[in-house]
């Protein structure tokens, strides 16, 4: 019965503290699984667009002509570059913390958050512009884009929502970094945010081509 006697002391100090490496691996794997499910949600929204694009090419062509006249396409292109840059800023920040440079991390991630914020603002400007042109989320009987709007807004706005979440998350990372929570060996929190942010970027890369160009 000797095991029984150690029972209480074992229980007392046995709160599970996984190593940083274990935690990092768990977190990263969980994030990838989460992203896998995000892939599917986005796919549903994108598929509704793609199927529509296939069956109503004339409406989409009209949209493309339209955004050449309005500031649309250039606004969106700027937005695309903003998001690409923010992804770059993200990895540069990750490299800084891997090198142990906390100030570098804070600077780069703040830049990421800033670029993301501008993206959201510009997207809002674009939406305002488009809704004036009759592209609305609801079925718009008075516009030639009757049922185009919903298929356009569903994926892009869902993406925009992800950018907003990403910006908040970036601010949280910056907050943590200022509190000194990340070190050169313990930066899983930054890396996981990076995975999410790059994923949002990848979705935009696909959306930009599919919706605005093709």
């Amino acid at each position, binding site marked *: 019965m000797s095991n029984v006697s150690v029972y209480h002391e074992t229980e007392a100090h046995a709160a599970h503290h996984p190593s940083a490496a274990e935690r990092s691996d768990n977190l990263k794997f969980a994030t990838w699984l989460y992203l896998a499910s995000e*892939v599917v949600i986005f796919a549903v929204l994108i598929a509704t667009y793609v199927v529509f694009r296939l069956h109503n090419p004339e409406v989409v062509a009209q949209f493309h002509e339209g955004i050449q006249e309005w500031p649309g396409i250039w606004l969106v292109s700027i937005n*695309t570059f903003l998001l690409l840059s923010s992804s770059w800023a993200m990895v540069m920040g990750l490299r800084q913390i891997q090198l142990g440079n906390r100030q570098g991390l804070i600077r780069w991630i703040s830049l990421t958050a800033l670029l993301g914020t501008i993206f959201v603002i510009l997207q809002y400007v674009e939406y305002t512009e488009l809704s004036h042109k009759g592209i609305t989320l609801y079925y718009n009987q008075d516009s030639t884009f009757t049922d185009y709007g919903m298929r356009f807004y569903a994926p892009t706005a869902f993406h925009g929502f992800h950018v907003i979440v990403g910006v908040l998350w970036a601010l949280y990372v910056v907050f943590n970094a200022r509190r000194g929570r990340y070190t050169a060996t313990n930066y899983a929190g930054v890396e996981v945010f990076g995975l999410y942010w*790059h994923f949002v970027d990848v979705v935009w890369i696909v959306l930009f081509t599919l919706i605005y160009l093709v």
Partner: protein
Amino acid sequence: MADTNQTPLEDRPGSPTTDQPLDPPEQTEAPPVVEGFAAARESLAAAIEEAAPAAHEDQHAGPTHYVGNTTVLFGRVIPLPVYTVVFIALGILTLFELALAEVFPRGGLTIPIMLLASLTKAALVVWFYMHLNSDSRVFALTLLIPVVMVLLATGFLMIVPIGY
């Protein structure tokens, strides 16, 4: 058929059992069971030793390959600031797409080329920025399976005619 399959259990003399009543406490030193347990423990210990190095091998250890302005590609250290290079490549590809879509007239291959360009961009981000090049292959699989699945599903939706 293996031998053990053939003999009905109840016919086997001395068939080992897990349901034999425990001996009363004064007989707990009965050697055969303890030996059996010791054997189990030993084989367990051996198994642990065998598996232990592998179990923690692919764990994260310190900075990755992207330190400073060098990177490791295919096992070699190259003086290449890969993050920035990828960023520039992304920009160029985007400009290329824009040019195809807005400047040049649309031809038969424009759309496939643009899709290909966007796929390349996505792959660059996933491969370098999301570290699939150095991380566990399981992560790559985690991404790949749903992507393939949704491509198939979308493909299916695309072949269904509207209003058949």
